[in-house]
């Protein structure tokens, strides 16, 4: 555990030097949120309801997915393809420690992003609630690891660093389209096929967390499907990480 802590502090210092990722992960969705909710400034306090929870869940889903994909998964692929990961591997001695340290730092980054976004939401809605901040932290803790596991499937691709960002953009675009394909969640199977999309999965878990904290309600059927999807994500990640090579796979470094 000390090794992970030590490496995390190194990753943290390194991460602070690249603040551009914050702009992409946080500033863009925040500006869009303000743009579509500009009228709320003029109104009195907005009460949070199911609809508000859904909207907040969408934005959280974007922030969480983009942060995990760009900072954890693409970050690891870049490190592997540049030889950086191999060098670190022979200092630390375990790929799990490197992955763990990288993940923990990005989880902290993610929570800072969500915290800032949630303050913007409360400021816009003129509605201040500690529950929203808590829900953001809970949702990020619950979904980040499964999403990182699911994203690990990208480790299996033989792809150059220059191409990975384009691929991730295409992937995100596809997931956004997939999220809006009409899919009536009439039974467990249709709910499952809908939630296998990571964006829908994060939105749903975020929604459930918000419902639980604000209304003290739990929808067990959705939670069961979310658990099933989580299990599938973990299995994908387990296999992908076990195959993660120390050497660059696209070009020799």
């Amino acid at each position: 555990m000390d090794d992970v802590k030590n490496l995390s502090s190194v990753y943290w210092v390194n991460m602070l030097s690249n603040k551009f990722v914050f702009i992409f992960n946080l500033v863009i969705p925040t500006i869009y949120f303000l743009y579509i909710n500009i009228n709320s400034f003029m109104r009195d306090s907005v009460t949070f309801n199911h609809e508000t929870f859904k909207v907040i869940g969408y934005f959280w889903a974007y922030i969480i997915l983009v942060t995990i994909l760009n900072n954890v998964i693409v970050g690891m692929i870049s490190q592997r393809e540049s030889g950086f990961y191999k060098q670190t591997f022979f200092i630390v001695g375990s790929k799990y420690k490197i992955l763990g340290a990288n993940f923990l730092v990005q989880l902290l980054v993610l929570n800072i992003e969500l915290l800032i976004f949630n303050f913007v939401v409360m400021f816009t809605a003129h509605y201040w609630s500690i529950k929203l901040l808590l829900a953001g932290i809970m949702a990020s803790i619950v979904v980040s690891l499964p999403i990182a596991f699911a994203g690990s499937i990208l480790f299996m691709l033989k792809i150059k660093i220059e191409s990975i960002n384009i691929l991730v953009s295409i992937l995100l675009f596809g997931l956004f389209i997939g999220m809006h394909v009409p899919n009536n969640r009439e039974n467990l199977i249709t709910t499952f096929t809908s939630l296998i999309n990571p964006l829908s999965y994060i939105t749903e878990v975020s929604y459930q967390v918000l419902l639980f904290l604000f209304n003290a309600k739990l929808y067990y059927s959705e939670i069961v499907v979310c658990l099933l999807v989580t299990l599938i994500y973990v299995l994908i990640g387990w296999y992908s990480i076990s195959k993660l090579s120390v050497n660059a796979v696209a070009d020799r470094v």
Partner: protein
Amino acid sequence: MQIKKYSLHFGKRILAKNLDVILAEDKINIISGGNGVGKTTFLDFLAGVGPKTATGEKIGVPAQRDIAYQLQNIHFFPTLTVKQTIEMYRRFGNSLLEDNESFKKIKQTVLDSIWHLKVGQLSGGERKIVLTYGQCLLNKKLYIFDEPTSGVDTTNAKIILKLIAALVVNNEKTVVMTSHNLDQLDGLPFSKIDF
């Protein structure tokens, strides 16, 4: 340490066939040979990260967790200062090695003047000194260096080789490295393995 029947091929191109390699434990083992003969791949194989087409029986080679491996190309945290980089190595290694006179002298004469600079601001040679210094702080049984002095001026190359030699002479570690510049090794305890 010994590698028996080492073979390597890439497709139809055979680079090594049933080679027996003996690594002296009290010397710097220099793997020498022209470009493209498979020196780096041999180091990868030794470190347990070689391609599937590199085969052979390892006898007495330490487990992967006991191997330090410095790659030829430096890809490391460029935003960390030299101080932060060395402190990172210390956390994963054994700072007692720094009591060695060679280490102390190099720390004072070279590292102290660049101590607060970021690694990304250093020249290639300075980076190699910093990382070699760091690698030598790791508490491992086998140390592998891939071309540690390539692209480095004569003065800095001597500093790097002094650090590596201290591992063998003062700390009884086994070192394997590749190098094209054998004339730089004059006076150092080394054993040459031709590929």
